[in-house]
């Protein structure tokens, strides 16, 4: 546990030291604020007191931002050789993976905390469905977990950050769009499986305020799978032979 925190703290400090954190937050808050309040199908056009426009925007911005956060995590360590330093210290591969993922998640949480004023603004406009909003946030957090774990896996595969970003976007887009499109074009069991795999299905119901264990389980399983793959890549060196 202590090892996880030490690694997470270092990563978080380095996010802020390298300005990545500030740039990310400015762009994230700028974009989501712009599309939520000013442009397109914004809140005022809806005529409803709901944060759904924000969740719709964040659904996309996080898809692009998280791979940019995770790309450095292991790819950079592989490139500079510091991974050897880390792996010969008294921490397990799991602690390394969890620590780094946790740092990304914390940064996303900090960014999301800065969107709470949107929530406050809404409460001054009319009667708000509080449950739906908290569910929406929960949905965003669960989705971030999935993207972080995909990003960690992609980053573990390579020593090139650009390859890491592209691989995680590629895997991400499968869950974001491709499975959805394929499922509508097919029928029977295949369509059902693809429909289940599509992230849209699960995110939609959560962000509308319906928490189903099936949906939560989907996100948790996917996150866990990504981390297991990443850990396996790190642990490959321990296979005798």
């Amino acid at each position, binding site marked *: 546990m202590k090892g996880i925190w030490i690694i997470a703290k270092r990563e978080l400090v380095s996010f802020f030291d390298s300005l990545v954190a500030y740039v990310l937050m400015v762009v994230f808050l700028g974009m989501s604020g712009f599309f939520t309040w000013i442009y397109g199908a914004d809140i005022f056009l809806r005529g409803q007191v709901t944060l759904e426009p924000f969740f719709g925007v964040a659904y996309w911005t996080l898809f692009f931002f998280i791979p940019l956060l995770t790309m450095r995590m292991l790819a950079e360590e592989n490139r500079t050789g*510091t991974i*050897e330093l880390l792996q010969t210290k008294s921490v397990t591969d799991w602690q390394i993976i969890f620590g780094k993922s946790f740092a990304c998640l914390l940064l996303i949480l900090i960014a999301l905390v800065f969107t709470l004023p949107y929530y406050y603004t809404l409460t001054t406009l009319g009667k708000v469905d509080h449950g739906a909003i908290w569910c929406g946030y929960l949905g965003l957090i669960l989705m971030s977990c999935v993207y972080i774990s995909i990003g960690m896996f992609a980053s573990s595969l390579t020593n090139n950050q650009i390859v890491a970003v592209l691989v995680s976007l590629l895997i991400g887009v499968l869950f974001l769009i491709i499975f959805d499109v394929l499922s509508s074009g097919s029928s029977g069991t295949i369509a059902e499986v693809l429909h289940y795999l599509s992230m849209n299905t699960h995110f939609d119901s959560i962000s509308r305020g319906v928490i189903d264990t099936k949906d939560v389980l989907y996100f948790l399983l996917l996150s866990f799978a990504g981390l297991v793959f990443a850990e396996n890549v790190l642990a490959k*060196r321990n296979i*005798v032979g």
Partner: protein
Amino acid sequence: MNIRVEGLTKTYGPQKAVDNISFEVKPGEILGFLGPNGAGKTTTMKIITCYMAPTAGKAYIGNLNVLEHQEEVKKKIGYLPENNPLYTEMHVIEYLEFIAGLQGVPQSKMRDRVIEMVRKCGLDAEKHKKIGELSKGYRQRVGLAQAMIHNPEVLILDEPTTGLDPNQIVEIRKLIKDLGREKTVILSTHILPEVEATCDRILIISNGKIVADGSPDTLRKQAQGQEVLKVTIENGEANSIIKGLQSLDSVALVDPILGKTTSFTIQSRPNASSRRAVFELCVKNHWALTEMTPLETKLEDIFRNLTMN
């Protein structure tokens, strides 16, 4: 804490990087790992430090198998990897505290340990800089400091003095020697004077196999076998001098040195010295003995002999 390696083998595809090597290092011993590039030094070190699993064979730190007890083993080892990887965006102090935390140094002792290492490794003037701003020599010191931060019983240093200037090299060697009194140290290098200056024992490996094992002196003796003298004898006729020398009981071989009529190399028979006999021969014949130098086999020669082909 002993380091014990038994039948270690590591293959990369068809290539055998380490081929069935076994050795043991005891506490208070500094073992110099010597070998040409690609001989398998680094691979062996990576296996001992839990970075890599062997293809076959076992390595133990104390009684702990490095594959089965990774957590405990890693706590006992201080490791300076080859090329000294560092987080260049971190500050020196911050970095040392990070490593100390990972190695389980308790919060209460953290400050003291970091200050001690900064002092020991001569980082005082640079301690507030970012690692990326340091020169190569100072980075090397940071690498050494992080390896020793948790006061490990075993130190494994892969080419610890690369990039240091001559003064620093002397300091670091002294530091390693001091530490080596109570710890078990393995250091790899291809700088021969370094091994002679710091190590109690040398292990020469070539193509993944151990080709020599012993203290610098024993290695030299082994390689030399017989006494070899270089002598210069004047006031005599070359042929009669050679004949005279060859007639001595203890002399096995006499060779005139090319280009000189008065200098010879004399190889004695095994376990015999011919120095006295040569002197007495010269006195008897009224020859002037102007030079007699025992030729020592240099470590370089041993190294070349053992590792060529």
